[in-house]
């Protein structure tokens, strides 16, 4: 795979189970980029959690509303954006979302498994951006 940026867009129904489509696509891309199997499994689990959150809490399991998954291949990283159509600002940091136990757990899992994660609420819906690097970034000051 060349170092030129490649972008893959997926649109999946807000129906639990379809997150596997995004997981499969991410595996194919990450394998081609040279990520180890352990890192790919981490990314797939993080994507699954982000997609199910988007389906359940963003799109309210309305199958007609799509979750958009954007895989961006960069020279040394794979970025994954998961976008929903939720109208309410719903994504905060995991620790302020403890009223919903398993959702909070899902967000915690994402944080542990990827190198960078950012939740944001946009006018058009919620977004999670996750990034994994081919070579883990050095900790500041390490």
């Amino acid at each position, binding site marked *: 795979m060349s170092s030129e940026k490649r972008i893959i867009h997926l649109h999946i129904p807000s*129906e*639990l*189970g*379809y997150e*596997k*489509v995004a997981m499969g696509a991410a595996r194919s891309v990450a394998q081609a980029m040279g990520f180890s199997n*352990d890192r790919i*499994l*981490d990314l797939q*689990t993080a994507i*699954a*959690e982000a997609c*199910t959150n988007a389906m359940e809490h963003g799109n309210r399991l309305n199958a007609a509303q799509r979750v958009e998954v954007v895989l961006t291949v960069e020279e040394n990283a794979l970025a994954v954006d998961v976008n929903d159509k939720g109208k309410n600002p719903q994504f905060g940091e995991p620790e302020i979302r403890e009223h919903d*136990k*398993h*959702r909070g*757990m*899902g967000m*915690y*899992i994402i944080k*542990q498994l990827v190198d960078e994660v950012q939740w944001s609420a946009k006018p058009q819906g919620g977004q999670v951006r996750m990034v994994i690097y081919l070579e883990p970034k050095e900790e500041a000051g390490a």
Partner: protein
Amino acid sequence: MAQELKVTARRVVSVTLLDLQGDVTMFAEAELTRAYHAAVDAGARALVLNFAGTDYINSAGIAIIISLLTEARASGITLVICGLSSHYQKIFRMVGLTQYAEVFETEEAAVGELKSRSSEPA
């Protein structure tokens, strides 16, 4: 797209194994609790959740497992885990699930440990 969970119970001497086949997600709750309660109602006091037949577990599924483990502990039932891939062993440790239950690599290790405990003098 989702693979419905099926749970099958089988007895190995004094230990009851619950073999999970399929996805462990929010859809697994009814089947998991049905199988657990059926085994307990039949007299099981030492159970193993065998994940060897599942390759997809998410946070909703983990929450169901934690709920079962909590119930088992409150009832004096021994419930342990085996057959997880190394990836899901890591996830279970990450979310603290291993505080609720012992995790064994294999069915043989789990059954062996529970059998040895049941043969210990009280």
